[in-house]
């Protein structure tokens, strides 16, 4: 392992049993997470992006399990963990999570302060007044004004954005090394979304966090990610630095995702839409999973699963188009416009 890699996933396979059938949600995905970076995992719903990160915290549903592969973290293989006792040392304490919906992630019956103090008591052994002091300090850290008063309030007295700040406060309360943010702003308004993203960026710097963002919003990705992993049908099909993915994507699925952005559309014309539906993961996938929806698919795509081809030392993609023998293919024209796209407010 390189020395700045904090978490390394190797050929991870995750399966679920549903009504007697086996669904392979993650099909041999690998990923290295570097210290202090922010990595975004993008993909459609059902691509496995949430399941993938849930395995790092032992939070898979009961009918799911890691079939093979390794999750190496601090000399341990998390994939081998079987008991709750093992997970409790990691979950919340060293790898923490910010959930999508602040309405459901908080208990409506407990004051906000208690919920933060609870985490501190459980993981850091703080008691009574010390826990309260620390909780108030964290509330202030996440930008909640008048934290002493807010400490005693219930979640329903908070707005959506403020509630998400509380959820973040709980997640960072134990000084975790890795923070996983699962669609942290999907339930929020645009202006609040921008503020929460600012907060997360700021906390990352202050606490030296390594952050994984899970999102389907490429606009959010552009603002927060150093690196981007594109997931499709349980596998990472392309990974690279943010600039490499936005300006120089190589996988046809990444092209399709970017092309369908409404920001790239012209009024009165059709937006680019990906044809078809994702593959049925109850059945084994032959070749490249995206091939049936891919207008650029080659014959080989239907037969053999493509390996990763390196585009640069930091950028690789799983598509046969990068094979030296493949025919030259032009990427969609409208992707050139990403580079020119500016903000909407010019001073």
């Amino acid at each position, binding site marked *: 392992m390189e020395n700045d890699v904090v978490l390394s996933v190797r050929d991870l396979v995750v399966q679920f049993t549903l009504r007697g059938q086996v669904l392979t949600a993650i099909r041999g995905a690998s990923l290295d997470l570097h210290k202090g970076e922010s990595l975004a995992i993008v993909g459609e719903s059902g691509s496995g992006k949430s399941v993938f990160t849930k395995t790092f915290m032992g939070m898979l549903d009961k009918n799911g399990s890691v079939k093979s592969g390794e999750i190496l973290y601090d000399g341990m293989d998390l994939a081998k963990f079987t008991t709750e006792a093992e997970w409790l040392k990691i979950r919340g304490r060293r790898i923490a999570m910010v959930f999508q919906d602040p309405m459901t992630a908080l208990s409506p019956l407990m004051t906000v302060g208690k919920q933060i103090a609870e985490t501190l008591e459980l993981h850091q052994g703080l008691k009574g007044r010390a826990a309260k002091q620390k909780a108030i300090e964290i509330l202030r850290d996440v930008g909640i004004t008048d934290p002493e008063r807010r400490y005693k309030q219930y979640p329903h007295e908070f707005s959506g954005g403020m509630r998400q700040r509380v959820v973040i406060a709980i997640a960072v309360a134990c000084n975790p090394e890795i923070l996983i943010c699962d669609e942290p702003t999907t339930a929020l308004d645009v202006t609040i979304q921008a503020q929460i993203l600012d907060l997360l960026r700021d906390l990352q710097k202050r606490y030296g966090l390594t952050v994984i963002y899970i999102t389907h919003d490429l606009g959010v990705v552009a603002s927060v990610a150093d690196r981007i992993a594109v997931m499709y049908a349980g596998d990472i099909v392309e990974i690279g630095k943010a600039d490499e993915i936005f300006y120089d994507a190589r996988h046809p699925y990444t092209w399709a995702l970017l092309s369908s952005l*409404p920001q790239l559309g012209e009024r009165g014309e059709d937006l680019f839409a990906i044809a078809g539906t994702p593959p049925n993961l109850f059945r084994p996938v032959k070749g490249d999973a995206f091939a049936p929806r891919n207008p650029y698919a080659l014959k080989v795509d239907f037969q053999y699963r493509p390996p990763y081809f390196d585009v640069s030392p930091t950028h690789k993609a799983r598509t046969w188009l990068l094979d030296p023998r493949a025919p030259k293919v032009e990427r969609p024209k409208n992707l050139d416009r990403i580079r020119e796209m500016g903000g*909407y407010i010019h001073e």
Partner: protein
Amino acid sequence: MSNTASDVLLSARDISVTFGKGKRAFRAVKNVSFDIYRGETFGVVGESGSGKTTIGRAIMRIQPLSGGEICYGGQRISGSIPPELDREMTRKIQMIFQDPMASLNERAKVEYIVAEGLYNISRYVSREYVKEAVSRALSDVGLLPEFASRFPHEFSGGQRQRIGIARALIMQPEFIVADEPISALDVSIRAQVLNLLQRLQRERKLTYLFISHDLSVMRFICDRIAVVHLGEIVELADTDTLYNHPLHPYTRALLSAIPVPNPQVEKEKKLLVYDPSVHDYAKDAPVFTEIEPGHFVLGNQKELDGYRERLAKG
């Protein structure tokens, strides 16, 4: 686009909606006026709690007004109206809902869900007619007529939203209120549903009221946009004008917050935060004024002068 008064399909005059009574009364919509032209897509954008959905519900006549009136094709449709007009409006104005997972009856087959509106406005619908109308509506939205005998849980989110659209189309409406119709959908499915909405509009000359908080989608689909803040329209203009020359500080704050899918721009982006205390409305009350043709903004005299100056600079 040149619009004359005769093109106005729906007009709202000083409409207000109040929830609660007496001391606890809360005005969710405050004296809002706008016209929607035949065949256009009129967008209402705002944050949660701004009253955008309430405006849509008022037009649907689900929410009674506490003031003002709504006219459709020159006829008043708010308040108490004759039963024939009521029935006509129920047919002509239809709605598409936000969450396709929550807006379909889980216990009913698709055929019933799509045809329900027909049963409601006419008591004598022949079975053959319903069958044919349903299969036509389903194929109009790109679903197979065979789906009529299935239940909603057998469909994906995008397909369910199509069922929701088919249910509106079967009434042969003129005007559709679409309340966040794509917010709950995935990026790739979003594009399909947006394209479908645009195609239906072209083919049937539909008029849309499109309610959303997502300004990047609005820019793509709307002809004109009204920005709503705390129950008031603060700015209204055609889409290009609004995006190129936003005047009201709230509009500017909203636009500055849109995530741009360009990492270089996004990382240097400056966020404008709207602070309502910049307005000094104590002495000089704000007026909703047409500051240039077709471009309305809410402001007091001093602010309007400032806006005019900014427009003159270009």
